[in-house]
């Protein structure tokens, strides 16, 4: 089901991003730790790829020139991160179900 797939892809990104953020903070105070730096770069590459794959299928994760959009302008599309089945109005304008 499409929603599950989207959530799975997003989960991968969330996992990679968590690791990357923690490594970033660690490196801020340990800039000469070579292994940490190598790990950071390796995960960053994986993260970038995961995001590109996600965006290709589900639309942009960032705006202001950081990611491209298909037509019509995708940035405004639902779901926004705070929307779920409870916050969805009757007219289904929050389109968690919308994609394909």
């Amino acid at each position, binding site marked *: 089901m499409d929603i599950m797939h989207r*959530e799975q892809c997003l989960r991968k990104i969330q996992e990679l*991003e*968590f690791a990357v953020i923690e490594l970033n903070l660690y490196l*801020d105070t340990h*800039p000469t730790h070579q292994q940490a730096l190598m790990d950071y770069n390796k995960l960053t590459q994986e993260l970038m790829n995961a995001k590109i794959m996600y965006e290709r299928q589900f639309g942009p*994760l960032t705006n202001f020139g950081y990611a491209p959009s298909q037509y019509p302008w995708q940035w405004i599309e639902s779901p926004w991160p705070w929307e779920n089945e*409870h916050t969805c109005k009757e007219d289904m304008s929050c389109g968690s179900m919308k994609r394909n």
Partner: protein
Amino acid sequence: MWIYEKKLEYPVKVDSCNPTLAAMILEQFGGPDGELSAGIRYLTQRWTMPTNQAKAILTDIGTEELVP
């Protein structure tokens, strides 16, 4: 400058409506001594830090605290 990522940091599942809890959580974030308050302090105090490490740490933690 900051960029906003249109996703949550962690997956969240909400199964019941609890306005009292919601108010408490929001107060933790935006109230006195909340994360938002602390985050703004980090972001404004980093400019006077003497070391690059301190500038970086305050910038990064401030950034993390900023987006609910």
